């Protein structure tokens, strides 16, 4: 009953720990990760619960990098100030090396520039779509610490360019909503049209809430384009398109997903929309996406229909896989660098669940790489931490809106690569 006995016990534990790496050892420590999500709004809570769901599954597989994972969740209230304070507390006080969030681009951005980049912390967002992040990354200001599992508006603009090219349009006029989103779209679409050899004859900003869009339409019409691209919302879109058609403008139109509405179809009139095609991003049609749905339904007893749920799950899983790959006590940069190892298109495919995480551990410990197959498909980040998404081309029909073409993630990626 003395020190010797404890010594033997300790040695015994140490031996068994060596014998069974990843199980016994994992119980000894806890690694904290941070999450800043808008839990106080109704659609934000499920996003946070989905992230916790992923963490639970990883813990069931023995945790990541040898430790159990504890997700410390803070509310952003969709307010940049609150979000930054929460992120600062998590990084400075809790010492997290990995931060999940935020949802809104306007909240994620100040966190990225003032907390995670200076603190060398990986930031993985489920839901921010602004291309401002891409720009920031291209300027080298994210230090490669920024990732997101939500496709940017770039996917839609690329698909629109593909539609124009497939249809053989030579010229196009662009009318866009004069806000952040519309300006973003206009900038992207101009580059993408140019890349496929379609000439943009006019790019016209449309302010909403104007009594008349006649002047804007006239300006676009004056360039006599073969087709028209619209990134507008239904209210001003209807007015502008009716004006456009009545003035004899082409009915070869390409629409952003914002005009995917029955109201728009009814008010413009189906008879004028026969040559119109629209674009949108789509959820993937893969086994892994179905598996995520099934797992989600089993856990939460409802379909994952809210925004960003599959994205939140994948963001968490990939981040934890990267933590595993980076090993114990890795810095933020190490984890960021390890993300390529777990989203390697040539790696061993692993599923998005406890078994998949365990399998990934084995492959990673053997020095291999894995390809994570999650709720949003086979996630792959580009050099700016952006992902793309499958896309659909749609058209208006008698019954509503029907799909014309589905582009898988690989098709979209291949096409976007061909544009660059």
């Amino acid at each position, binding site marked *: 009953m003395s020190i010797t006995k404890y010594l033997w016990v300790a040695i015994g534990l140490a031996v068994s720990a060596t014998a069974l790496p990843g199980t016994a050892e994992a119980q000894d420590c806890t690694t904290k990760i941070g999450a800043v999500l808008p839990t106080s709004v109704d659609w934000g809570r499920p996003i946070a619960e989905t992230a916790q769901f992923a963490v639970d599954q990883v813990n069931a597989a023995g945790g990541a990098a040898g430790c159990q994972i504890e997700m410390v969740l803070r509310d952003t209230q969709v307010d940049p100030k609150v979000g930054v304070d929460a992120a600062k507390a998590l990084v400075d006080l809790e010492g997290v090396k990995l931060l999940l969030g935020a949802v809104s681009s306007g909240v994620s951005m100040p966190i990225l520039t003032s907390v995670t980049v200076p603190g060398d912390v990986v930031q993985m967002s489920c839901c921010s779509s602004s291309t401002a992040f891409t720009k920031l990354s291209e300027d080298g200001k994210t230090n490669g610490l920024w990732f997101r599992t939500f496709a940017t508006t770039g996917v839609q603009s690329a698909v629109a360019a593909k539609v124009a090219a497939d249809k053989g349009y030579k010229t196009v006029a662009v009318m866009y909503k004069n806000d952040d989103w519309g300006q973003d779209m206009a900038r992207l679409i101009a580059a993408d049209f140019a890349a496929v050899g379609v000439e943009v004859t006019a790019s016209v900003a449309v302010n909403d809430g104007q*009594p*008349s*869009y006649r*002047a*804007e339409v006239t300006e676009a019409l004056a360039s006599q384009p073969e087709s028209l691209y619209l990134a507008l919302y239904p209210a001003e879109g*209807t007015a502008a398109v009716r004006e456009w*058609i*009545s*003035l*004899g403008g082409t009915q070869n139109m390409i629409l952003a997903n914002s005009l995917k509405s029955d109201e728009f179809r009814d008010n413009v009139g189906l008879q004028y929309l026969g040559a119109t095609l629209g674009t949108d991003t789509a959820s993937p049609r893969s086994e892994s996406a179905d598996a995520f749905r099934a797992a989600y339904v089993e856990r939460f007893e409802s379909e994952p229909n809210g925004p960003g749920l599959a994205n939140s799950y994948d963001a968490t899983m990939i981040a934890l896989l990267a933590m595993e790959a980076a090993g114990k006590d890795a810095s933020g940069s190490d984890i960021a660098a390890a993300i390529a190892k777990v989203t390697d298109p040539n790696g061993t495919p692993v599923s998005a669940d406890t078994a998949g995480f365990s399998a990934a551990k084995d492959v990673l410990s053997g020095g291999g790489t894995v390809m994570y197959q999650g709720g949003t498909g086979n996630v792959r980040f580009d050099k700016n931490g952006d992902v793309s998404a499958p896309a659909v081309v749609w058209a208006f029909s008698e019954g509503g809106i029907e799909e014309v073409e589905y582009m898988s993630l690989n098709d979209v990626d291949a096409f976007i690569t061909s544009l660059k």
Partner: protein
Amino acid sequence: MIQNLIDGVLTGSYISLGAIGLTLVMHILRFANFSHAELLSLGAYVALVCDALVAALVPVFAVKLAPLSLTWALVLAILMSMVITGLSALLIDRLVFKRVREKGLELSMIFASFGMALIIRNVIGLFFGLSPQLYSRDIAFAMVLSRDPLLLVKPDQIFVLVAALLLMLMLHLLLSRTTFGYSLRAVAENPSLAQVNGVNLHRTIMAVWLIGGALAAVAGVFYGLSHQLIPVMGRDLLLPIFAATIVGGIGSVYGAVLGGFIVGIAGNMALVVLPSGYTPSVPFLLIIVVLMIRPHGLFGEARA
């Protein structure tokens, strides 16, 4: 360039109609009525209902008067809407503005009119929904006036312009050739003195609301005919109409007409020099420039 000019004249026609009513009310009742533009929405939506009613009762009237997208049903609906909107304006005055006028200050009237605008706008939204409505779902195609330079005009717009000019002419005759017109101008000039000379102030104010409301209804329908009906159309039209009134000079009917056309043309011509995102600033710029050069507007006069 010429196309922009033509478009501007056509846009100007319904802005002018709206501005006439506003300028009368602003001059005679001496307050800036921010709810005036809502009378346009009200008139447009009343006409929408009347149009559907007439078309349902007398299906013969639902046939289009080619090449216009106008129907006899809508013509009748416009007349009905003029009456109903005029009476509504009167009712609003009786219920709200009259009481505020008797007790409150000039500023209270302005706030009351803001409140009225919000109420009307939201009641319309409550009844008709927030999405756009149309008198006719068919698109009336534009006529090509010339190929080079490309000039396009819609038949509906020519109708709107002609009808607006006719209405203005009628109003001009009313104001300049009738005793009623004289008494109206007398009240605008000096209410007390007019009363001393036997003008019934109460009835004159009623007439102002009726005329203003009726013209607003026509302007609203014409706007709806050219574009679309949406509950926020009053909000969108408020600024151009105020700009037209101020540029023309408060109280001057002719100034309001001219102001309407100036605002319409300037808004359309602005695209020639400004990027399209900046065109909404043009009415503001016009107001500033005119007020700097002629503080009372083009036709306005200083009053004691």
